[in-house]
């Protein structure tokens, strides 16, 4: 524990050089800007910037990514409050009360409670990250290849079956990703797989090209197909500030939102959607003025925003300790580790201790910078929402091409990028979630290697794949997730269903205002999603838009 604290202080010392502080500032500024801009999220930003940071040291690149990670979320809440069209599923709840507040002339208070709430939740969440990650590493360090295989499979099943509304579509996306991950020379035997004798494919498809293609190019093509003719109305905003009364009403929701958000983030199938949603219903129930909900209650912005940020901090725990990404930004950051030749997992903390602690320290620093930056700059960010859409999306295509070319300096990658962009377009058209594909591409090859290593240890005996108690527990969890729809039906028949407290709270979502169109409907659809308690979209910062839930 003391060692960790010392390492963390060293991390702060690394961040606190003028050059690195500048990079952190750049990261949070870029992160907020792209979070505000429609169509771009934190995951896409990290993917786009990755090839451009090859000239930097890994430490500096990760200082920047940490800024983008939190900055993207701040920006997202601004968009949902001022536009009422949340870009991320995790901001849906913020939009409900936040936009009502903005329309009632309280945009400044809504932005302030979101910004300060994000700061509080981000700081507490990062502290918890510091405490919990070493514990999880201590647990994970003794795991063998079969256990890892089991954990990876849990990751696959969780992102495909639990997050998102249709299991078969989630699995379809996952399998496409796994197949993309197969392309190239088999690392063990040196044989080519699925390269179709194209020499450029022998090294496999770079994860950066996949991420940029699916996120950036796919998104642009999809927007181009349905571009809104008239830009949505932006509510003007002044300097954010809070009255004493607002402070009194906000601080408890901030803390409660944090307490709800973080555990969901740590769970392999958590995500930010469920906790933001739970936080909303909780605040509504505890409020002394429940009648204000639906008309712009500040608690309904403070709680969910805190939950969103705390959950994002939580997702970094499995990412750093196990190498298991549970949201799109964590997935792309994992790819960034690999690009720098660093293998995430329990050994990461030992081998790359400086890097990890610097990353964590820069999360604290970035969070503080964001608070300082965002309160005065909110009017400027709001102006970004008016950028003409042709320039915005032309710019995304421009930077996507530049980034993808820069990876290997070959035009072939640009054609690959276009193909993947068309794939991303089709996935958006048919409601296939993007996250399982990305996770499949990144974790697929690792899972195969762990599986083959397990078989090597057992001399080819298939029992070697099953492993010990840890993997038994993991496979049991997987079985519960897979069988959940059947289980739930059984439990509901014998109602009152045990363990359905969360489900009940979800059902309370029907109390939410239905008039707001989008958000209300989406929330009402929540109750039908599979996997109730574990359910929820990952905080897909910007990429996977509104969950593809059943149409109404």
């Amino acid at each position, binding site marked *: 524990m003391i060692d960790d604290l010392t390492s963390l202080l060293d991390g702060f010392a690394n961040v606190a050089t003028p050059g690195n502080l500048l990079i952190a500032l750049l990261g949070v500024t870029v992160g907020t800007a792209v979070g505000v801009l429609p*169509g771009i999220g934190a995951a896409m930003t990290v993917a786009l910037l990755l090839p451009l*940071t090859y*000239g930097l040291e890994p430490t500096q690149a990760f200082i920047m990514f940490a800024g983008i990670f939190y900055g993207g979320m701040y920006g997202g809440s601004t*968009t949902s409050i001022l536009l009422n*069209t949340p870009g991320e599923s995790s901001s849906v709840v913020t939009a409900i009360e936040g936009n009502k507040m903005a329309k009632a002339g309280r945009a400044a208070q809504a932005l302030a409670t979101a910004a300060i709430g994000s700061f509080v939740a981000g700081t507490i969440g990062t502290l918890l990250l510091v405490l919990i990650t070493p514990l999880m590493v201590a647990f994970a360090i003794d795991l063998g290849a079969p256990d890892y295989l089991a954990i990876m499979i849990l990751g696959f099943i969780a992102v495909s079956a639990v997050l998102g*509304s*249709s299991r*078969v*579509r989630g*699995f379809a996306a996952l*399998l*496409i990703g796994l*197949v993309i991950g*197969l392309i190239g020379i*088999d690392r*063990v*035997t040196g*044989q080519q*797989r*699925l390269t179709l004798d194209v020499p450029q494919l022998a090294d496999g498809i770079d994860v950066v090209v996949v991420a940029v293609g699916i996120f950036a190019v796919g998104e*642009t*093509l*999809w*927007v*181009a*197909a349905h571009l*809104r003719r008239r830009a*949505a109305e932006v509510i003007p905003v002044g300097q954010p500030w809070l009255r004493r009364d607002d402070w009194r009403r906000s601080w408890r929701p901030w803390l409660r939102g944090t307490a709800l958000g973080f555990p969901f983030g740590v769970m392999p199938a958590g995500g930010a959607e469920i906790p933001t949603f739970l936080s909303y219903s909780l605040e509504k129930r505890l409020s002394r003025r429940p009648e204000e909900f639906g008309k712009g209650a500040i608690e309904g912005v403070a709680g969910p925003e805190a939950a969103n940020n705390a959950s994002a901090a939580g997702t970094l725990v499995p990412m750093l300790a196990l190498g298991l990404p549970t949201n799109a930004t964590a997935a792309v950051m994992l790819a960034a580790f690999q690009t720098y030749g660093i293998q995430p997992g329990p050994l990461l903390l030992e081998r790359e201790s400086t890097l990890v602690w610097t990353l964590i320290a820069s999360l604290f620093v970035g969070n503080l910078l964001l608070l300082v930056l965002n309160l005065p700059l909110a009017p400027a960010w709001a102006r970004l929402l008016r950028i*003409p*859409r*042709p*320039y915005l999306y*032309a710019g995304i*295509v*421009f930077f996507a*091409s*530049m980034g993808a*070319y*820069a990876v290997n*300096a070959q*035009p072939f990658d640009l054609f690959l990028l276009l193909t993947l*962009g068309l794939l991303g*377009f089709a996935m*958006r058209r*048919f*409601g*296939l979630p993007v996250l399982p594909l990305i996770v499949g591409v990144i974790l697929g090859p690792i899972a195969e290697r762990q599986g083959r290593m397990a*078989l*090597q240890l057992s*001399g*080819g005996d298939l029992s070697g794949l099953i492993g010990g108690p840890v993997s038994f527990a993991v496979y049991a969890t997987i079985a519960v997730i*897979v069988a959940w729809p059947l289980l739930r039906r059984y439990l509901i028949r014998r109602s009152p269903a045990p363990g359905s407290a969360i489900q009940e709270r979800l059902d309370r979502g029907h109390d939410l205002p239905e008039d707001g169109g989008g958000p209300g409907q989406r929330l009402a659809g929540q109750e*039908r999603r*599979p996997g109730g308690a574990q359910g929820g979209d990952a905080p897909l910062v910007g990429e*996977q838009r*509104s969950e*593809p839930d*059943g*149409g*109404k």
Partner: protein
Amino acid sequence: MTGAPQPVPAPASSRGRDRAQYGVCVFLALVGILVIVDAALTGNATSSNDPIGPRPVPILLGALLLIVAAVYAADVARGGRGEPEGGEDVDLTTPIDWRTVLLLAGAFAVNAVLIEPLGWVISGSLLFWSAAVVLGARRHLLTIAVAVALALVTFYGFAIGLGVNLPAGALQGIL
């Protein structure tokens, strides 16, 4: 995989059954077959270090793809549909504007062809300009100015400043 997808209620007939989804099933099945055939053509090299070799994983994935394709098709037949993704600038009430999509993809492909002979500054300007015009930019002079400025700034900033690989192409020696 017991995950029979949620019985999503069919929408109120405005867009019908969305039969194009069967195309996704066919695509998944074709990928599955491709993966299995490719694995079958790969020579199986097993050793004591690697008891299973490179083939079983692709064959497993191929089989799973075929199963998912079948379940997907059953889901579509029962009226299931994936909800197209929304977003800030996405207006789902309009039909897909194929002309814009194809022109944008075309602009993209042109850049891929021209980037090495002409260099990033020219091909990138062209890419930004054509993408913006396709997406509805009407102030042509401004668009050209922004395009050229962006291409120059990125070339000097990233290629020369940060050492990113961007070709100078036809302007080699001038820039």
